[in-house]
């Protein structure tokens, strides 16, 4: 056995796997694309098979939802075997052009969307927003996320957050345009070198601010900072935790009603990976008139929307029904008028699914900040 293979085997603790099959049994992508993660874990023992395994297109089907890791009785992370195989392809440079462009954009512009860094805070235009300055003390320092900063569909999350914060009078500031990608998708795509660089650079950058805590708008940034950034000086929370706190303290109250049936979709990065299930639900329940429904597959069993794991930049070869479509159909069957989520990727994938199913007239996909921001409008 070569040192190289020992490293792969040891790195992913392949010898710890007992091949019980719970990973594949729970994997939502298995149903849609035939990905069999248990088989990959088994076959990756064989050093001679690694190159061959890395060339299989299924390795790009994984959405990094972490269901396999949650279910593994040995505490392993089977998905990271797939990420390790992806890393081999990334190192060779032979990735799909869309993945290549996203990674290169992270290096050059600090975001995977091929947008200029100079435009990162354009969403702030016309808003009364406080921008953080190095060294200045701030209780709540907001990290916006690349997708929210640039995607016109979800920019509303940041804009509404400003509206809500200004209502409460709490001390806050948003990061200036030097904010860079947290590396969540870079990590799952398998660009290990770039991810290491982001950990180093972002730690140094964020530590320049004297923040009581960092508030991440996206669960992807939130989980990534909490999992892979050991040297951050400030604790990182998700915005639902902050807003839940503000509602509890009655610093945020709602004058309007929203008499709607809402079903909450647990984002994988917020729920399965970080255990935040109750705060988003409490926020929705705090809205007068809301009837909160539950999916049959909720909380740690929540069905992945397929937005993570770098899937925004690589399409599955499977033509089977998208998981987001399954989710929207389930919501319709429940009689939900609004499908709410607390993640920009979930919103983009679920809304696409809703539109492609033709349910636009009867249903709405909304981020929690969207609903709360509308209530805050006078």
């Amino acid at each position, binding site marked *: 056995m070569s040192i190289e293979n020992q490293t792969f085997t040891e790195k992913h603790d392949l010898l710890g796997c007992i091949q019980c099959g719970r990973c594949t049994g729970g994997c939502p992508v298995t149903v849609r694309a035939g990905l069999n993660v248990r088989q990959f874990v088994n076959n990756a023992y064989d050093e001679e098979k690694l190159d061959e395994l890395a060339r299989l297109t299924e390795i790009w089907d994984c959405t990094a939802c972490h269901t396999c890791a949650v279910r593994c009785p040995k505490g392993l992370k089977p998905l990271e075997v797939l990420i390790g195989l992806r890393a081999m392809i*990334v190192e060779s440079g032979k990735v799909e052009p869309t993945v290549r462009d996203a990674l290169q954009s992270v290096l*050059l*512009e600090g975001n995977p969307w091929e*947008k200029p860094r100079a435009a990162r805070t354009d969403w702030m235009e016309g808003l009364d927003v406080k921008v953080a300055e190095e060294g200045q003390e701030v209780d709540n320092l907001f990290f916006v996320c690349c997708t929210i900063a640039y995607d016109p569909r979800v920019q509303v999350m940041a804009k509404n957050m400003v509206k809500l914060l200004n209502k409460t009078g709490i001390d806050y500031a948003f990061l200036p345009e030097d904010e860079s990608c947290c590396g969540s998708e870079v990590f799952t795509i398998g660009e290990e*070198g770039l991810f*290491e660089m982001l950990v180093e650079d972002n730690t140094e950058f964020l530590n320049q601010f004297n923040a009581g805590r960092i508030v991440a708008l996206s669960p992807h940034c939130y989980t990534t900072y909490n999992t892979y950034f050991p040297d951050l000086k400030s604790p990182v929370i998700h915005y639902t935790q902050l807003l839940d706190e503000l509602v509890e303290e009655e610093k945020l109250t709602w004058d309007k009603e929203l008499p709607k049936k809402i079903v909450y979709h647990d984002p994988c990065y917020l729920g399965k990976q970080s255990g935040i299930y109750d705060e988003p639900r409490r926020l929705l329940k705090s809205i007068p008139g809301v009837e909160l429904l539950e999916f049959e597959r909720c909380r740690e069993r929540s069905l992945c929307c397929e937005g993570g794991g770098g899937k925004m930049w690589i399409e599955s070869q499977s033509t089977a029904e998208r998981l987001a479509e399954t989710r929207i159909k389930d919501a319709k069957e429940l009689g939900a008028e609004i499908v709410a989520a607390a993640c920009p990727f979930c919103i983009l994938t679920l809304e696409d699914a809703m539109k492609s199913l033709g349910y636009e007239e009867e249903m709405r996909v909304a981020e929690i900040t969207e609903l709360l921001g509308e209530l805050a409008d006078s």
Partner: protein
Amino acid sequence: MKSFVCIKYVPDTSEAEVKVNPDGKTVDDSRFSYDINDADNYAVEESVLIKEDKGGEVDVLSIGPKQSEVMIRMALAKGCDRATRIEDERIAGHDPLIIARVLAGALKDQEFDLVFTGCMAADDGHMSTGVALAEELGVNHASMVKEVEVLDGKVKAHRELEGGLMEVVELELPAVLTIQTGINEPRYAPIRGIRQAQKKELNVKSLDDLGLDPAEVSFDASGIILENLYIPEVESAAEFIEGEPDEKAEKLASILVKGGLV
């Protein structure tokens, strides 16, 4: 096989609004992001593919600022062997013929089989540098190349012409090829590769280092005088001609005659 690949650091104007500065001769680049020129990226890949197939070396040549070194390092990470970056504010950068003269100056004492350039720069769109470079060097060239076959002492180049026609030409080496996008699939330069490429040679040279007379490549030497830059006004004069084919033809003919176009 010894090759050179010439690359340019250009702004990506697809996302940012282009604004002309008050001087009327420059563009506000404060909100642009910069990267390798698209066609040059394909030229880098082609040069590396040929090196991987036939052996040899590839040198990167670029005229640009210090910031462009990230682009040069990426090319080195992809498999190019060494690089020269030329920086000298006396160079009339707006004139492709002058650029070609500087590049030729950098190549004059070098032995090479092939020089690759992109077929067009995304910023000024002149499509002239590669062809002018061949003229300056006194070697053969083929432009808009979509496929390259290296033969013994020759190269077969498939040129993409208007309407999608392909012309196949055979050139004696040495030669300059201007590469069209789509000839290959440029690879990704992983960060670890870029870091390793830090060890590769990257020389920075001025006109004096190259032994070039600044007077020959200066703004005064340029035959192109930049008078004024402006954003073309958007005009919306479109007329839809309705009716049966005969009527449409008659109406169209009448418009063309009235307009003095036929």
